[in-house]
């Protein structure tokens, strides 16, 4: 006897339920939570020496301090529950050009070059380490040549000299030639090797040029090394290192961010004369962390450029992030008021859904007539309704 449609649907639903139960035995019994991010675009309050509409361009004159003052009002603050506040963090998101100072200069605390001065044991102060390849001096530069296909060569500097990023926060590496090679710079800090990204955020390079690495404060580091890999195996691979310098900038420009009267970030800008090649035209996205407890309903943020520089801000947004995964799902031990509000509507919805389902099934039954009746007007049919 053929089954009618309702029985087929019932069988399907039973099958679906069994399938879900079986799946449940295979799928991890866990729940993921996602962080909530609440961004707040600010409004411009005033400017001094900077343009007042997007994109904000600061003055490049060295004898002028230029500033932009913005107001941020995180209007969700009065509605944040205690469990939200416990796991909330905030930050300022700034998108703009990579800033370059128009004043100041670079001071090398330790220049390593091919003259042999300050270098030990080889004329360049470097020696071969991991991997397979050759290290030699060619035309007063250090030539590093990895040999094996898919191989690498890491050369180390064994000066046994430690640098402090509070005083030497910049590393400048000059590579004269790079042929078919991928390379990056490492340092040893607290017993761990760290691959450095340059100020453009690039870790692995495949070209020659002058590359600048900026380190955060409070780091002791030593034993810089360069790892070189073959890019393609059928071509000769090498890089020529001309110079590596460790130092800092002096009398340069600075960029400060002040929140409600307190400085939350100061960035020393790299001098244009030395780093023009590296930073021109690059767009960067910076996130400045802000203590959640220090924010108020009404926040005044000042962006101040001292000493002149090339700086454009294309957007500045204030964010509050709530890490829901750190809240216990049972946090709402008392019933929250929005839940009451929506709960009432919910009950009404469920009741009406039941009624609608019943109506739908009735309607389906009455409208499932043979296709032969297609063109008969509804009011002339006798077998319906």
């Amino acid at each position, binding site marked *: 006897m053929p089954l009618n449609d309702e029985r087929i649907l019932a069988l399907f639903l039973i099958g679906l339920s069994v399938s*879900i139960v079986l799946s449940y035995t295979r799928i991890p019994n866990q729940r993921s939570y996602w962080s909530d991010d609440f961004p707040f675009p600010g409004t411009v309050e005033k400017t001094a020496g900077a343009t007042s509409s997007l994109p904000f361009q600061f003055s490049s004159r060295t004898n002028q301090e230029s500033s932009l003052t913005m107001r941020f009002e995180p209007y969700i603050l009065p509605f944040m529950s205690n469990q939200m506040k416990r796991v909330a963090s905030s930050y300022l998101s700034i998108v703009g050009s990579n800033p370059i100072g128009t004043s100041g200069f670079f001071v090398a605390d330790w220049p390593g070059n091919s003259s042999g001065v300050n270098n030990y044991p080889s004329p360049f102060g470097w020696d071969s380490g991991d991997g397979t390849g050759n290290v030699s001096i060619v035309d007063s530069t250090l030539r590093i040549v990895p040999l094996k296909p898919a191989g690498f060569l890491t050369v180390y500097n064994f000066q046994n000299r430690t640098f402090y990023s509070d005083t030497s926060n910049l590393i400048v590496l000059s590579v004269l030639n790079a042929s078919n090679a991928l390379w990056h710079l490492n340092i040893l800090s607290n017993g761990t090797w760290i691959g450095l990204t340059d100020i453009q955020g690039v870790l692995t390079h495949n070209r020659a040029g002058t590359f600048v690495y900026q380190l955060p404060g409070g780091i002791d580091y030593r034993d810089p090394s360069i790892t070189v890999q073959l890019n393609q195996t059928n071509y000769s691979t090498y890089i020529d290192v001309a110079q590596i310098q460790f130092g800092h900038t002096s009398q340069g420009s600075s960029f400060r961010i002040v929140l409600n009267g307190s400085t939350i970030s100061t960035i020393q800008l790299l001098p244009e004369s030395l780093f023009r090649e590296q930073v021109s035209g690059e767009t960067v996205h910076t996130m400045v962390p802000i203590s959640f407890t220090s924010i108020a*309903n*009404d926040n005044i943020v000042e962006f101040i450029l001292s000493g002149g520089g090339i700086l454009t801000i294309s957007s500045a947004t204030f964010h509050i992030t709530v890490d829901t995964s750190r809240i216990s799902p049972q946090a709402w031990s008392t019933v929250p008021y929005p839940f009451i509000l*929506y709960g009432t509507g919910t009950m009404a919805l469920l009741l009406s859904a039941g009624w609608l389902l019943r109506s739908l099934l009735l309607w389906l039954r009455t409208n499932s007539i043979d296709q032969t009746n297609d063109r008969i007007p*509804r009011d002339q049919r006798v077998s319906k309704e």
Partner: protein
Amino acid sequence: MWNIRRLFFVALAIRLALAPFLTLSATFENITAVDTIIVQNFNPLSWITSYGPGFYVTYVPFYAPYSVLRLLGVHALFLLEFLFKIPSIIGDILSGYALFNIAFELFQNQRKATILSAAYLLNPYTIFISAVVGHLDPLMMGLMLISMYWMSKGRVERSALSLAFASGLRFLPALLLPIFYLYLRKQFPHKRRSYLYTFGVSSALLFSPYLLTFVQLGLTSQFLLSAYVQSFTSPLGTLGQSSPTTFKYNFTGFLASVGLWPYASILSNIRTFLVLYVGLLLAFGFLTRWGFRALTCFSGVIFGTFMIVIPLDQPHYLSWFLPFVLLGAFAYPFIPRQGPAVLVAANIAIWPIIDPGFLVALDATFPWVTGYGYLYSNWPFFNLNLQLSLSVAYGVTIAFCSVILLVCGLGSERSDSVHIEGFLRDRTVAALVLGEAIVLTFETLRLVYFPVLPSLAVVTTFSALLVVAVYSGWTIRGSRKDIQQLSRMRTVIMLAQCLLWGALALQTGSIFLLTQAIFIAVIAFTRTIRAEAILTQLIMLWSTVYISYLALTSFSVLQISLTITTLITTFIAWLAQLDMSALPRSIGIWRSKNAAQ
């Protein structure tokens, strides 16, 4: 034999079978939004998003069974995801029900109504959006369509309530209130007050939780209240947060990628939409008879205009437009059925096929099957330029369907439309169209994924020449049975396009493009209509994608200029195809001229 009951059961079964095991981003977003209430104890209305209060009323109940299961030690996320897709599935069923009834009321033809309902319910796009992605848009559209149906039946209170609830899910359906009111004013003038009263009271109740937010903010700080009020426009201002070069569902991404966005953005924004919206309302008020056909057509045009003019058009926005396009294609046969087919195919091709979201979906529930993202990260067909090229064809089709809906909405209410005939049951024609489609698809894939394999280029060129030869032979045979005279305007447009294709072929050195230029010229002079119409539409569609791709990958200014010019000519040729479509006689301007000839 298919009947409406079997159709609904099959549609429901497909959705229920897919929903528990596949999931995508929208479900996560919906769960996160409800988490703010359940887990964080937060008033979600204090944070303005594109969701209205109706969203929370609808989705919070589906958290309840999961909360009970959690007390029993069941924490599996996929169960929650399944529950959160049920509103979308209900929305699809509502839409299918409403479309069936609307078509039945209009034509008293159950077969036609069932086909329309099936075109919606068994459509891969609607199944994907509700059962896999889990957007709330299907529910919003279901409520809106049912409001439209109840309006046509004169049940104005139910209609008002339904429209208010749809507007409570997202604010967009409220845009249709003025044309709903004008329709009501003509059809049921004595029920106007009742309609407005019901809509006003139900909306006020639904939106009343906002009052709590306003009062609390006002008591805290006037500045906060002011910032909160200003933030109501923020969901439309997404440009600042992402790059327009990755917007893949209208012209934004393409124009941004070829460097024309600074000029295009002058017109592509919310202000332009508001101006056009007011213009459409005036057109509805003064140029139509406020009938039901005008109501449905203008509803589609408003949504279509929004999708084209607003910079960020997302995949699920098609849910707003598709029901009206299907009405235009299956109920009043204004729109060629290729229209909705192209929209659905392009939408799905952009995502999840070229960008294989379905692999992420499988990863979410069966990570060991797809290797924890390995397949997704190694997917070989990722290609932003191809997606953007398809987005141009998608945008053109939306514009094409909107123009037809607008023209038909402005036409008289008489059922004066002409059925689109299926193309002649000639095996040669079918083989020809299929062969050309295969050649064009193959050539596009070759260009995108294998641009430096000369042997493939030879194969595609040879195949294209073969199609031209067969077509030429076939038209000589078929020219004796002319159906109608040629439109000179269309011939001129096609010849102009042929010249541009030729210039592009010389510039790029592509013999394939030269072959297609010859083909367009042959079609421009041919006198047999049916195969030509199908082939022309196919070539127009393909040209849009192919030329867009060339523009995106060109580095020569001359080539970019040439491709943009060719693209504009292709747009015009698309519109010239209106000549070939089965439009109502009252508005087929070109058609009337042709008939006179």
